[in-house]
């Protein structure tokens, strides 16, 4: 049960970063940390003690397997996470070329 609390602690660290930091790259890093904690939580839920990886060996079928459903969900979510992080960074590099800063307070001041 301690592992669940540690995993949620990682999520809270990412949330703290998103709320308090003022730098766009730091916000992107915090978002990816929150993403990673969600992946770890799914993998923890699917684990069964004494289980083996979900690859069936036809010669030896009587084994306990780990639950494959959370792994399938996380598998697609990881690749999606890479694409959305890249989209976020593309917007960030455009903003840097326009305003010459990563700081969101100065971007607000320079509007118009």
């Amino acid at each position, binding site marked *: *049960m*301690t*592992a*669940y609390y540690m*995993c*949620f*602690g*990682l999520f809270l*660290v*990412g*949330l*703290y*970063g998103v*709320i308090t*930091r003022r*730098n766009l*790259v730091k916000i*992107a*890093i915090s978002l*990816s*940390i929150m993403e*990673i904690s969600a*992946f*770890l939580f799914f*993998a923890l839920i*699917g*684990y*069964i*003690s004494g*289980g083996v*990886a*979900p*690859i*069936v060996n*036809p010669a030896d079928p009587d084994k306990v*397997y780990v*639950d*494959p*459903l*959370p792994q*399938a*969900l996380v*598998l*697609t979510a*990881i*690749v*999606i996470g*890479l*694409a*959305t*992080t*890249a*989209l976020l*960074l*593309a917007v960030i*590099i455009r903003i*840097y*070329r*326009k305003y010459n800063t990563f700081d969101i307070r100065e971007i607000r001041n320079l509007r*118009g």
Partner: protein
Amino acid sequence: MELAICIITGFMILGAIYAIHAKDLLSAVITCGIVGYSLVICFLLLKAPDLAIVQIVVDTITLIIMVAVVLDSSREERFSRLDLSGRITAFTSLVVIGILLYFFVIAAENLDALGNSTLRMAAPYINGAAEKTGSANLVTGVVFDFRGYDTMGEAVVLVTAVIGVLAVLRIKGKKEGFGLLKEDSAKA
């Protein structure tokens, strides 16, 4: 087993805290790599080799893209003294974290202990699934057969993200910067 995962997760929390508070942006990005690569070890301990293969490559590519963005800039995070609004924000975030922790402690009573998972859909996906789908790798069977709609939606989301990146980076505005913003400022 659980002890090993707790130790690695502790490392991940330390790395995350340093990444959020580092002064140099490049060191922050590289420290964020600690979190991703530790996740690979956690996946291997939790018997998920498919996820470990994907995560170790994805983390490297994320690191490459982030370093390419950061090397363009001056790399320094400007710290100013904590003014009133900064203090209010920090206090609010602590309150929000406290409330979320309270609700998680309530919700954690319904979770099973680690290793005794009893998800309702686990048995139909494992027993006889290899004969139903013909695939020895059960994860591939779930991804492409039982949950095919999910995978198709994922493919479409990937295409949409690529179109977004191309629209943001490769379309040129008028002269420099965003054309719309320049027109607005000229009008005002």
